[in-house]
């Protein structure tokens, strides 16, 4: 094998050019390495492949008479003998430079002067004795890189070099890069936020713990509430009414009073209540409301006056299924597990659209809209609704068009409803807390705007 001096690729014996880089392998007066066969350029002192000293190897061949190799009975002795005959090991010889040999000779001479031996006896032809320890540490000898013939640059290297030259030739920008101004803080700062939260918390807690007379004023009665009361009052006793509890515990604070107000009037009027829910969390809420109302109406019985039919899955499909056939859509009593058809409250009930009234207490407008679309609009079934205070406004178009007979919105609506029903004006403590909280919020909004206005006036004055 011939090893290319440029890239080191092994080429077949007799190759004239390297198969990898194309370099000419056979050069006139090139020095072949006796160990590995690499063709070295003329004048090279050490083989570029294995590091064998080419001049020393030549000297060794020339000066040392042919000596028969000692018969090595063991492989270790044979390898040691081979090492001695060939001179320095490649790794050591590669690390040595011309100056190193001179240093070593001087060091040995110094040693010999101390021990009385001639330094030349310590040196064998080839320059290495297995007994001698080099004075200078191997690690202190600088590593000499192999001489490498320059290769033509590849197209990618030329491209990169051109790009570098272009970038380096560009003038340095004297002006600094423009740093954009930091954006103003969005929202309230931490301090104002804490103050607002604390004020709101106190405003909601204080009226509940200590009744404040100025806040205990009954709310005005909206027309929508009066219509809802009237729609229930117009029903004869004993007819079934479906009540949908389509909300969860998150809105129970706003809607549970509404649901209980409806239940109080329905059961108080002797109507049969069929409680159902198209929300998973609605059925237990219905149970809680029924328990409270039954406690206030001992003459009413569960199963006769009121039954909880539980959760019906499917959103619009559930409402449609209830609209077509209530016992089929809600086959079991939520509280007892018995078939719903065994409940006396469900006697003679078919589809929800045949009922004289449906009461929907919904968490938002889309939940209410399902009932309007599936029952009130196609069949004209009377519908009254209960909604959170925030969603009450959104139901006004349906009330204006007659699809909803009445709407009770939030705690204030429930208080007004109970006031109309009982003939007494009353305001629960929760309503007083809502009032004070609303005033605190309004005051915070006004204060924030005044602060912003003062800042604007200051800026204009400074400008």
């Amino acid at each position: 094998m011939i090893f290319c001096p440029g890239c080191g690729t092994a080429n077949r014996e007799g190759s004239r050019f390297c198969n990898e880089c194309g370099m000419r392998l056979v050069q006139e007066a090139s020095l072949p390495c006796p160990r590995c066969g690499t063709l070295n350029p003329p004048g090279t002192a050490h083989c570029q492949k294995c590091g064998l000293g080419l001049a020393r190897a030549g000297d060794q061949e020339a000066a040392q008479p042919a000596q028969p190799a000692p018969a090595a009975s063991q492989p270790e002795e044979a390898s040691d003998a081979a090492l001695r005959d060939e001179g320095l090991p490649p790794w050591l010889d590669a690390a040595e430079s011309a100056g190193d040999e001179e240093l070593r000779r001087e060091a040995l001479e110094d040693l010999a002067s101390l021990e009385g031996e001639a330094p030349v006896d310590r040196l064998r032809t080839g320059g290495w004795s297995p007994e001698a320890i080099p004075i200078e540490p191997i690690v202190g000898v600088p590593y000499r890189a192999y001489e490498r013939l320059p290769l033509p640059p590849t197209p990618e290297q030329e491209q990169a070099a051109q790009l570098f030259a272009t970038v380096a030739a560009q003038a340095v920008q004297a002006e600094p890069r423009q740093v954009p101004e930091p954006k103003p803080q969005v929202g309230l700062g931490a301090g104002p936020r804490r103050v607002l939260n604390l004020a709101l918390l106190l405003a909601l807690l204080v009226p509940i713990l200590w009744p404040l007379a100025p806040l205990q004023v009954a709310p005005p009665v909206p027309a929508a509430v009066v219509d809802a009361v009237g729609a229930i009052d117009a029903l004869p006793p004993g007819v079934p009414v479906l009540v949908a509890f389509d909300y969860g515990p998150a809105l129970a604070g706003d809607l549970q009073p509404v649901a209980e107000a409806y239940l109080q009037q329905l059961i108080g009027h002797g109507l049969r209540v069929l409680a159902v829910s198209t929300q998973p969390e609605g059925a237990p809420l219905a149970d809680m409301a029924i328990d409270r109302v039954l406690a206030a109406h001992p003459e009413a019985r569960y199963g006769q006056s009121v039954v909880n039919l539980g959760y019906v899955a499917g959103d619009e499909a559930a409402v449609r299924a209830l609209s077509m056939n209530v016992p089929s859509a809600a086959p079991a009593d939520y509280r007892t597990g018995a078939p719903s058809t065994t409940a006396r409250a469900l006697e003679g009930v078919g589809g929800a659209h045949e009922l004289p009234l449906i009461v929907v207490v919904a968490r938002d407008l889309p939940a209410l809209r399902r009932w309007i679309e599936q029952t009130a609009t196609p069949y004209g079934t009377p519908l009254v609704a209960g909604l959170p205070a925030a969603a009450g406004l959104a139901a006004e178009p349906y009330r204006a068009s007659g699809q909803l007979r009445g709407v009770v919105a939030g705690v204030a609506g429930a208080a007004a409803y109970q006031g109309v029903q009982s003939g007494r004006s009353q305001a629960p403590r929760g309503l007083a807390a809502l009032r004070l909280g609303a005033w605190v919020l309004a005051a915070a909004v006004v204060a924030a705007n005044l602060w912003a206005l003062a800042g604007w006036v200051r800026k204009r004055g400074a400008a």
Partner: protein
Amino acid sequence: MRRVVPALIALVAGAAVLLDFFLENPLLDALGASLLDGAVILGACALLLGLVNLLVVHERRIRRRERGWGTSVVILAAALASLIVGLVAWQTPAFAWFYRYLLFPLEASAGALLAFAVAQAAVHAWRFGRLEGSLLLVVGLVVLLGSLPVGGWLNGLAAVRDWLVAVPVLAAVRGLLLGVALGVVATGLRVLLWMDRPYE
């Protein structure tokens, strides 16, 4: 075939229920009723699927010790406990206890926290400056204070609030609802005419 079969099922089911809504036909009534029963069952299955997915996601988080895995342990323990109690003893006071003293207060507390977030958003958004912001500020204050009057000059605010609700708010909400209704009709038609395939 993989795309045609689901589309055919959606078309037939949707058309059957739609026709049942408009026409009085015993065959259509029966078909519509059974399809609706199937939809109710599918809705319940979707709930179950959501529960299984929740358990799998949090189990993976615990197994890999990802960030927040301690919270996942609590979630899994609570979900499994309520699931077991609900399956074994759903009519006993134990399940009612779970609901009344765990779920109800937790959800109510989470809902109550929204009040503070909404208050901060209102203070930030109701700013006097541009025309829209100023209008929002004035109307917001009138509706807020007019909804819960205590007498005196605040009753006048209540009258203004009633007018606002009866005229501009009603008009705007009506427009929104019409737009939503038209969108729902358009989406339904697109599904029935195979222009949209949300089930793929």
